[in-house]
């Protein structure tokens, strides 16, 4: 393992910032949290930012001119600016607050898709998509009679890009693709795909639910048209996420949900929509959560995303090596060089649910199931897998504990 990198993160100091990591699952059994791909834990800075908002500044935003309303509005919009900077957006109005990645993708499918797609048009997806980047397109395809095509996944868990040019010759209107698979951990070559897709006249939507929390992501470098991601997977609260969209695309799109704040003027039989980004933010939004999201982005920026990615790269390399030494364990997905901190595996003769239940008795939290990617599991002929995933607060010792936990599973089912 490469340990010569001088600029490494101080994991123990980082762990100190996360109160939950000090808890025990049972007396004497500390929590080993290896489920950050499902949701990350939250540092004190995020929890405090939200509490402070409720204790000092709580008010509705964009209306009212009293002090609290001004403060709340300023904090909410400051959070948007932080998030825009974090992903390298040109302007903060290109960042729309939504509930989560799923809602962001639905927004594009139903606002952009309903307006610009016609019967017979094609959408290009991949076989490794999370249900959130699959079902909205299926719903739209059913409504508008569209065709869905899928870039296949190889046995190693990589996208088979040998056929991408044939797919693009079919002139899809949009390519919707995950940046990092939540099951295999595969990091897809987004820059290469946007270049090819744009040359073929297609827009590109990237599901960044797993990449934005774990890798440096810059929307201008990648030249993506839309990027969807959730706060709760990147140290922030649940109930808030963001949709980035290029300004001219968002401008051309009709509102998604109707209601307060998304309008300029309302008459009894008609309305005129508000400007960006408010056009897409109907109703009172999750204000405290947006502020918490901003605090999460501050935290990650202070640590530095390159360092987060380097730490996870080291951990996954260590974990893959350790897991491969356990007889009967099979890990899915590519090698450490091509993936993020996700290890989905099976253990011969033991159902993933039972694996994770026994690991839980050792304090180890992993996920079992199909991880909202049923078609991908079907492709590999698996009803379910167990998934261990890593973040900036995980340690090598925790990987060792996972390995010891798996030895216990073997003993019980041996």
């Amino acid at each position: 393992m490469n340990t010569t990198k001088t600029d490494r993160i101080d994991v123990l100091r980082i762990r100190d910032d996360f109160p939950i990591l000090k808890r025990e699952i049972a007396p004497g059994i500390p929590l080993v949290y290896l489920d950050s791909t499902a949701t990350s834990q939250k540092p004190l800075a995020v929890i405090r930012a939200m509490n402070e908002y409720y204790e000092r500044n709580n008010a509705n935003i964009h209306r009212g001119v009293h002090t609290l309303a001004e403060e709340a509005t300023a904090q909410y919009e400051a959070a948007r600016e932080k998030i825009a900077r974090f992903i390298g957006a040109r302007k903060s109005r290109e960042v729309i607050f939504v509930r989560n990645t799923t809602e962001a993708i639905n927004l594009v499918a139903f606002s952009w898709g309903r307006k610009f797609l016609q019967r017979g048009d094609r959408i290009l997806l991949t076989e490794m998509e999370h249900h959130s980047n699959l079902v909205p397109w299926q719903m739209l395809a059913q409504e508008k009679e569209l065709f869905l095509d899928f870039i296949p996944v190889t046995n190693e868990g990589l996208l088979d890009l040998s056929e991408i040019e044939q797919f693009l010759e079919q002139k899809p209107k949009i390519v919707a693709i995950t940046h990092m698979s939540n099951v295999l951990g595969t990091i897809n070559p987004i820059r290469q795909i946007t270049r090819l897709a744009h040359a073929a006249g297609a827009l590109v939507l990237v599901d960044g639910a797993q990449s934005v929390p774990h890798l440096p992501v810059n929307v201008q470098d990648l030249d993506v048209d839309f990027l969807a991601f959730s706060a709760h997977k990147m140290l922030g609260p649940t109930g808030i996420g963001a949709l980035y969209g290029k300004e001219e695309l968002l401008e051309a799109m009709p509102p998604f949900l109707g209601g307060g704040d998304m309008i300029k003027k309302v008459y009894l039989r008609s309305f005129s929509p508000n400007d960006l980004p408010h056009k897409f933010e109907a109703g009172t939004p999750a204000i405290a959560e947006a502020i918490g999201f901003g605090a999460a982005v501050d935290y990650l920026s202070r640590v530095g995303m390159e360092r987060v990615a380097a730490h996870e790269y080291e951990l996954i390399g260590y974990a893959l090596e350790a897991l491969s030494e356990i007889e009967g364990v099979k890990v899915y997905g590519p090698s450490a060089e091509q993936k993020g901190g996700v290890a989905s595996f099976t253990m011969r003769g033991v159902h993933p649910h039972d694996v994770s239940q026994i690991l839980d008795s050792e304090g180890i939290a992993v996920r079992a199931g199909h991880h909202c990617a049923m078609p991908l599991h079907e492709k590999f002929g698996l009803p379910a897998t167990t998934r261990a995933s890593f973040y900036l607060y995980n340690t090598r010792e925790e990987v060792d504990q996972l390995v010891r936990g798996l030895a216990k599973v073997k003993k019980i089912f041996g």
Partner: protein
Amino acid sequence: MDDLYREIIIERYKEPLYRGVLEPHDISFEDENPLCGDHIRIDLRVDENSRVVEAAFSGHGCAISQASADLLLESIIGKTLEEVKRLNKEDVLDLLGIELGPVRLKCALLPLKVIKAGVYGLGEASDSLVEE
């Protein structure tokens, strides 16, 4: 937590007594737990008095759902279909001898849900079949 894996559960998971398929059968039903992909099919043969005389399950799943199926089938042999309809969540937990959180409870109750949907002759199995 380790209590979940009582000897009887591991034993019935590894060497079930009622695994198989009955052809022909009087009642057959299958369903899955979409959360974890567990899939269970249950076949029953009944006599002229509507008593269960033979039972078998097939499919795949975790130790809890498989052991639950095996123990449940063992317990309904000799029972009338009316008696089977009255089985509920508590009966399954008594057979397994464990307490379960809401997620694993679904695994344990899947076999009962499938049996009752079959006995009632329903088009699909619903959670309401196994609530108290």
